[in-house]
């Protein structure tokens, strides 16, 4: 019997194949994870209710009080930014109602000290993206389309992915996302009848040209 000279035992075959497969799979999984991460709601920061310095509840204000979005976000149809209400705006009501509530203490403090309330930004596009609320609102894009059912959020969270491909999808085919002007701030509006036909009609009415040229958003 020849001396046992073999370097590798039979399990080495399995091990070597498994190792190679593991390396290949590892590389693929790593790439795939990085790739996939940005597609998860977590990667895009969707569905993450953001706590604010004041326990402001949109559900209460939108549903119970039926305050229109534009009461507080007053510049949404005129300016690039929708506008975060000034402390003064809060106190328009809250000097009368809940004016002793400890929950509103930060608001009163802001008003009396003159220091703004440090709200936390929920919807953020990069600095090189020039998003303008006014043109979208005036061309029939409703609040709910991008911001979701704010009327059901205790703390506002990001609903839309806010990725470039998401923007592009609508810019390429805006029709299905258009609504009549009187329904812009409605959280519950649903079209009756043919959505596609309505979209076409609204495209014409608003004179909508979804543009996908780069400088539409990047300048």
């Amino acid at each position, binding site marked *: 019997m020849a001396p046992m000279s073999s370097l590798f035992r039979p399990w080495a075959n399995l091990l070597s194949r498994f190792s190679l497969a593991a390396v290949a799979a590892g590389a693929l999984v790593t790439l795939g994870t*990085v790739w996939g991460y940005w597609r998860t709601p977590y990667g895009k920061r969707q569905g993450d209710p953001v706590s604010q310095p004041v326990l402001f509840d949109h559900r209460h204000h939108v549903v119970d009080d039926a305050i229109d979005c534009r009461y507080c976000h007053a510049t949404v149809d005129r*300016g690039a930014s929708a506008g975060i*209400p000034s402390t003064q705006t809060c106190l328009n009501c809250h000097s009368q109602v809940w004016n002793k509530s400890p929950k509103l203490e930060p608001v009163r403090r802001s008003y009396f000290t003159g220091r703004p*309330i440090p709200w*936390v930004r929920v919807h953020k596009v990069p600095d090189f993206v020039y998003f303008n609320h006014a043109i979208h609102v005036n*061309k029939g894009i409703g609040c709910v389309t991008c911001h979701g059912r704010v009327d059901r959020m205790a703390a506002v969270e990001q609903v839309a992915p806010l990725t470039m491909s998401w923007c592009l999808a609508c810019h390429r085919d805006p029709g299905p996302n258009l609504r009549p002007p009187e329904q812009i701030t409605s959280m519950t509006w649903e079209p009756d009848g043919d959505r596609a036909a309505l979209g076409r009609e609204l495209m014409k009415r608003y004179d909508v040209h979804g543009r996908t*040229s780069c400088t539409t958003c990047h*300048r």
Partner: protein
Amino acid sequence: MKTLPIHGQSPRQPGERALWTSLEDLDGTARGPEGEFPHGAAEAPAALGRRSFLQLMGASAALAGLGACHPPREKIYPYVKQPAEGLPGQISHYATALSLDGYATGLVLTAIDGRPIKVEGNPAHPASLGAAGILEQAALLDLYDPARADGFRSRGLHLAWRKLLEEIAALAASHAKDGGEGLAFLLAPEASPLLADLRRRVQARFPRARFRVWAPLAEDQAAEGARLAFGRVLDAQPRLDLADVILSLDADFLSGPGDALRLAREFARRREPGEAMSRLYVAEPALTITGAVADHRFRMRGSEVAGFARQVAGALGAIPAEAALPAGREARAVAADLLRHRGRSLVLCGPRQPAAVHALGHAMNAALGNPGETVHHTAPVLGEARPEPGALADLAREIQAGAVRTLVITAWNPVYAAPAGLDLGALLAKVENAIYLTLREDETSRRASWVLAASHPFESWGDGRARNGTVTLQQPLVAPLKESTTAVDLLAAFLDEGNRGAREHLKALWKARSGPAFEASFERWLEQGMIPGTAEPAVAAPVHAEAVAAAVRALPAAPPGLEMAFARDYSLADGRFAPNAWLQELPDPVTKISWDNAAYVSPATARRLGFRNGQRVALSLPGRSLEAPVWIQPGHADEAVTLALGYGRTADGPVGKGVGVDAYRLRSAAAPWFEGGLSVAAAKGEHRFAVAQGHFSMEGRPIALDFTQEQWKRESHELDELRGPEPSLQEPVDYSKLENAWGMAIDLGKCVGCSACVVACQEENNIPVVGKAQVAKGRIMHWIRVDRYFQGPPEDPTVIAQPLACVHCEAAPCEYVCPVNATVHSDEGLNEMVYNRCVGTRYCSNNCPYKVRRFNFLAWRGEAAPTEKMLVNPDVTVRARGVMEKCTYCVQRIERVRIEARARGARMGPVQTACQQACPAEAIVFGNLRDPGSRVSQAHRDPRRYDLLHGLGTRPRTAYLVRIRNPNPELG
């Protein structure tokens, strides 16, 4: 990513004052601890350390991209109380003004969220007509300069405002006892009615106080000349749009104080070919932008201009023959041309010429019947605030005699700019209270016992008068960024009214001078930026011919030998803009040198003396000597050396410190502009200029085209080779279905090469400054540049300027080579540059035949001071290191107009690019090529239109219009 306007802000320790220390690296003077990196090849970029580290970390985070690595969420700080007007991010425009050399130019400032970010001309204002010059525009950078003076101090002790007022009140009270015997004021020339009023009131309180008006580049000879010719001081108000033939005697009227924007507009309007085209003769020593657009340019030393003027005047019969000189061929031809256009001609005389030449100019105009036609005369707009020759010398004598106890200086930097031999710095030490009001800590503030920070014009109330007398209001856009005051408040302090505020003084003055409905009128005036109808009325002014003749006869002959000439610098003026990095970096409109001045000599003189470009030479005049580097300038007069003033600063912030050489050290009070008897000797060393354009010949290529009227009639068809469709394998994209197709046209016949467009673009588009070393390396960032080409003999070439930015080729060579689609075409035909997609291969720049793309080789901005962040135009992305950038046709303006119109359901109005808006000559036209009636469409159909590098088939959207010159056939 949105950060900063200036490259080289070094990271500061918390609490440390904002200092531009690292810019010293850029101008080649750094001797700090960073000096281990030699300049040029091995320069360490300014923004090292933390920032770069963070960038690297950011990059690795982006690559890793996993884990709980979300950046912290931003905060939003809304108003506590919403102001009545203004939306976040909305543009608002305010009319205001800036006074330079005493005359106000009406401006419109753009503000976003309370920050002024852009200076534009006020279309209603007679000195602007909507245009803005380089200085007016760049003044905005001074506003945000972190190196500005801050606060008030007396003998090194900081004073609070209230305390300062008390101290001045006490000082005033002590002077009031003897009627202001020991009180003197050194004021800048300033046409402001408010300051004039305050001066009268101060004089009334201190009857024996002395007021002196001084500026280093004063136009005192012009005033003297008027006095000679008319017997009293009068201002001449020329109208170039009415002049068929113009003779400029060393008058660079397209730049310089007061009226250049209007004159450029009027001049350019008469430069279209045809019968109505004007003709310009220029006699001057060094090539100027005016000389560059002349139909005939006679180069001669500064002291010889008088002789040429006498030749022409003699041939015109404007002066007696004994005062004239025998006319040469050129002078005869000029005179004959002027005579053919009696009442439609104009003689202009430059401020550097002696009074007699000015007087001679007036006499020539009178002889040609021009007064009342192409020129009229008015009472001097500066009024009493006219600079007097010898004001400084008189003051020095008084100080020497101990007659000045308190000296209030609102004039700019007399210690630096005083004539050589007048050691004002030492004299100031003798003044008990030398109170100096200054925007920056400079040479004078080092010597003054009181230093008061001045507010910038854009943060203070005031008034002024345009060159034609129109009263112009200056309103602030921001509260002062530094603890500072104004000349108005300072003078008022001597009346114990220092705390009333300039606004109240202004309103009080104009309330007194206007009718009952003052408040309403004042609001309207503020809106317009001026008080309409306040131009100085014309007065009849007969010329005293004998006095003129006598003065002319007394003119000395031009001295033989080398002549030293001093010049106002296009960028720095008298030097007060030396701390302004935009202006330092702006290439000189003629020589294209940035971050430097130089001793200009003609090629022949350089050959005779054996000088090379960049060679250092010692310039010596009796008792004075200065080393300066030589620059051989085609078109310069032989046997003369020209050196621009305003450089070689030793104080005044780190930007201008040590840049160039200080020509004031060579300039005498007796001969402030031209002095004979110059001796030059080669000195040790070679100077490395940062020249933005390396080559001035077109190499016979059809680039900046130029025809004479005669040639144009015969050869205009030659342009057909340079326009129209070129055969191509690719079907051109059809733009005819869209509402807009953007295009531009640049009229070389109108362009005067002033570079206002460059600064406008820099301001609008957040273009960084890179510093001298980087300019020398060929990394200047300007999106639009003004190329200058010389043709013909180097001694006396034809000169042409060609503004060039991205021409937005329809078949753009840059686009198809970009691997990541970072530069592509928009539906409306813009060549888009998407910074955030760019990975920086620079292939696009290589393949751009126009070389208009600019690359962020380093992090040009470094870390900016907080005030400088305020300057950033939020509509334009601030470009990161490693990305390409270039002219976008001001796409942010297009989109703003589009969104604002379409959000209202309206059609888009016209869009103006920043360069177009600033251009005083209306040479740049931008607009919609789909609209056949637009000016740009008309220009594209103009027979003078051609496409640059047409043969490449790039189909540029920017078309050029050839320049036509109108030379005198007699001089052919």
